[in-house]
């Protein structure tokens, strides 16, 4: 008469369980890899956009340095002349379509795509042609990544005697 015991074939069951655990570990490992990998190009794009936006902010400071009158006029019109009703800020509107204010620049790592950017100014205080404070905000976008650089600029003009 043949008798069977419950321990028969236990090793097979244990090894199958172990194998299953290892497979689960492997699958979760590959999944975590695929999650991490797409972040790398995004980090590059972020760094690229940060550096680009800083440069475009420099452009904006240059613009304010060279042609401040339109800003002063807009400040006067918005804050003193017609503080709440008028959206027409005068000659500053000429700048709105300027390539320095908004435009596109080729991605140096991928010539088939462009980064787009917009720059806005906010004049906080001004003592015309002597000392001004303004906020320059540059937003740059590339491949779905958006970065913003906001710089508070204190400008001091001195006459070169």
């Amino acid at each position, binding site marked *: 008469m043949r008798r069977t015991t419950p321990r028969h074939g236990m090793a097979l069951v244990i090894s199958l369980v172990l194998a299953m655990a290892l497979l689960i570990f492997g699958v979760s490992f590959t999944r975590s890899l695929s999650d991490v990998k797409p972040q790398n190009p995004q980090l590059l794009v972020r760094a690229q956009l940060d*550096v680009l936006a800083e440069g475009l902010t420099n452009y904006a400071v240059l613009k304010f340095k060279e042609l401040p*009158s339109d800003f002063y006029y807009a400040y006067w019109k918005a804050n003193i002349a017609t503080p709440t009703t008028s959206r027409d800020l005068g000659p500053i509107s*000429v700048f709105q379509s300027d390539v*320095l204010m908004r435009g596109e620049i080729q991605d140096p790592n991928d010539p088939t795509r462009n980064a787009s950017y917009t720059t806005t100014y906010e004049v906080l205080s001004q003592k015309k042609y002597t000392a001004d404070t303004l906020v320059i905000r540059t937003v740059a976008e590339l491949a779905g990544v958006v970065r913003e650089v906001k710089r508070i600029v204190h400008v001091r003009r001195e006459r070169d005697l």
Partner: protein
Amino acid sequence: MRHHHPAKGITLLEIMFAVIILAMSMIPIAGVMGVGLRGTSKDFRNLTAVQFLEGTMRQVLAADYARVPTGALTTPVNLGTFSLPLGDIASGGTTFNLSLQVTEETVSMRYRPIRVDLGSFVATNPSTWVFDGTPSTLAFDNSNTMQAYRVKRIQGLVTWSEYELGAQKREIRMTTFLTRVTE
């Protein structure tokens, strides 16, 4: 009469099955881990390159306009208070090469001139300002001293070799602008 003894312990066949199944499951996992490790070290080099280049670009952005020379910069550049780390930089067993291409470029700005010729004009009072109807363009194209270049385009490049990919050359580029805002 022949007695059948109850099965005790683990048979050789079971052990062999167990080892074979474990080995079969371990082989692909080991392979995936190897790929993952190679990918991680490749990503690390990529990140290091991005950090080196971003750091260099930020240093250029902090530099005085006049001190940044134009042309291809491939060796360290003295910028007065600090030096730009260009050329070969070794990190983590990889050599990264940093270089810059600096070019001065024309920039144009549109504006509407103020009629300063009018008797009512008071420089400090915008309510007296009258603007020309036709926009003008101010170009800094180096045509004369007053219109000297004001913008330098900085193109940064970092290159390195991926030795695990048969010394495949990798590169990353960034662009920014430096402007002359102090005279």
